[in-house]
């Protein structure tokens, strides 16, 4: 049940269903700050939000937390399951723990911050979102990434940026391997400015933009050519 407290509204998922939680947070009347307690790994927490409200999830979230978010600011004070902030359009989702696979998948906008590590396929097919991972990302991250920016303060796994389009990838640590058609690019002054802004928005102050390397599309696979067949 929703209980109004002094400065935030509380929803306890031991007492409330996911359906009621989402209906409440998606309501046109929803405003202000919300605390969701005892999430206990439930799926689809705070999906499809449309209002610029602040929602804190006090624990572990299951699949698709913050999915398709518009305008809301979410904080997950724990780990997040697969597809956190999938297809986010705007707003922000911050994960204080680790995130499972496909974090920020296909997201069109907004900011996804993961303070721990992210699993495989972080930023898969991303379409404009900014993703900042304080730790490392798993294999096939930014696979087919179309646009937006993926910042990795730790290391990247195998096949980073495979078949990517115009997304930019910044990695501070090591890259185990680059995927097909992904190559290291020159870090421009514009890139450094962008990186500075993204790190600041993510609340990361200890790393300088100059300590990152930039990766992007070599654009060799944009059109079919028989000589590239082995790359697919």
């Amino acid at each position, binding site marked *: 049940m929703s209980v109004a407290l002094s400065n935030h509204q509380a929803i306890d998922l031991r007492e409330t269903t996911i*359906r009621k939680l989402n209906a409440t947070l998606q309501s046109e009347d929803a405003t202000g700050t919300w605390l969701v307690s005892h999430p206990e790994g439930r799926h689809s927490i705070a999906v499809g939000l449309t209002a610029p409200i602040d929602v804190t999830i006090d624990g572990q979230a299951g699949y698709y937390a913050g999915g398709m978010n518009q305008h809301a600011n979410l904080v997950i004070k724990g780990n997040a399951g697969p597809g956190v902030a999938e297809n986010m359009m705007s707003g922000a989702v911050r994960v204080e723990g680790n995130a499972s696979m496909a974090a920020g998948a296909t997201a069109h906008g907004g900011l996804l911050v993961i303070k721990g590590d992210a699993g495989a396929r972080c930023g898969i097919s991303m379409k404009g979102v900014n993703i900042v991972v304080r730790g490392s990302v798993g294999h096939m991250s930014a696979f087919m990434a179309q646009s937006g920016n993926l910042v990795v303060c730790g290391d990247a796994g195998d096949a980073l940026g495979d078949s990517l389009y115009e997304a930019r990838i910044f990695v501070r640590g090591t890259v185990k391997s680059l995927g097909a058609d992904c190559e290291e690019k020159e870090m421009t002054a514009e890139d450094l400015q962008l990186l500075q802004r993204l790190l600041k928005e993510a609340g990361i102050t200890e790393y300088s933009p100059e300590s990152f390397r930039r990766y992007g599309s070599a654009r060799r696979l944009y059109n079919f050519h028989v000589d590239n067949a082995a790359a697919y």
Partner: protein
Amino acid sequence: MSQSKNTPPRTTPRFSATFDQFTISEIQRAAATGIYDIRGAGTKRKLPHFDDLLFLGASISRYPLEGYRERCDTEVVLGTRFAKKPIRLKTPVTIAGMSFGALSAQAKEALGRGASAVGTSTTTGDGGMTPEERGHSSILVYQYLPSRYGMNPDDLRRADAIEVVVGQGAKPGGGGMLLGQKISPRVAKMRDLPEGIDQRSACRHPDWTGPDDLEIKIEEIREITNWEKPIYVKVGASRPYYDVSLAVKAGADVIVLDGMQGGTAATQEVFIEHVGLPILSAIRSAVQALQDLDMHRKVQLIVSGGIRSGADMAKALALGADAVAIGTAALIALGDQSPDLAEEYAKLGTVPGAYDDWQEGRDPAGITTQDPELAARLDPILGGRRIANYLSVMTMEAQAIARACGKSHLHNLEPEDMVSLTLEAAAMTRIPLAGTEWYPGKTGF
């Protein structure tokens, strides 16, 4: 003595059945280019199909309904399992998913107009929802595809139903493809891709794998759309019994089963012709899966892939489907393959009836193109009228058959109304061979 008297008789030139003229031309093409052939449309090979079934009609043991006086209803309701707002089609034939990108905006508008005129639905495709399409479609199904091009929660909520696409009949296991000629500025913007690239969209969804994940994904979509919209799951016909069972388990309201005759905008010829099942062979297994789960008529089944007429529609319904969908036939109704375009087809190296280079975007009918001049040839209002006419004819044809079988609703058609003409059809459909009580696999004689 003349030369001819000294020359022994020769046989006439004999072409190989194995290395027929098309095969020879394909080997020559492959050797010259080094890349597989890509084309549009569905399989062109001869397959067991609805023509291999016949209706029996009424006689002494069954009595018919009056053709022009007694009602034969056609309405179908889809999404009755979980959705708060199921959709109601006046006729059980819908327009299958085809993208803006693969088709021109005019073609999409015409499909919407035609479907709306007869009270049925049309479907978006791999490229998102256009305002024209939404505006001209009274019932619009929004596809949720692996690429998620243009996917957004506003359009999800604007849709009347949502179709999670796992696969399609022309290429089960394959992703989308749209070649650079068709990635116009508007298409590129909608898909967030660079203009003119050869777009290769994913074959698997980016954030779920397997039926357990799909169940969670469907629940997420329902949460985002207030549990209002029917959720379809579309699969290419490959393992229909298991795929249908798993889709039911994952929470689908409606299952769309697409056979290998179903078209594609662009796919490798080898994929189109050699992967997947003819729709005739898939329906009975799909219906069996629903029956085994006590979900037949509770989870609705839409069948597509080579549906051409009211007879095909009636046969699919009699096999247990709740509705059918058309794609290729709708494009033909719009003007694709028209003999009036013979001269222009000749310039493209083809003839009316065989045009399948839809991937090139040079369609003289203005349907499978993004070229503004070509697309302008298709009048969406006239096109819509042709679609409406065609859908009406299909419905009337199916009603004529149903009345002849004594049925007051198309859904009352049943397997016992039919016979098989071939052993293959009998084996695939478990409908006895004409003149017998037997089908392959049936025991107890």
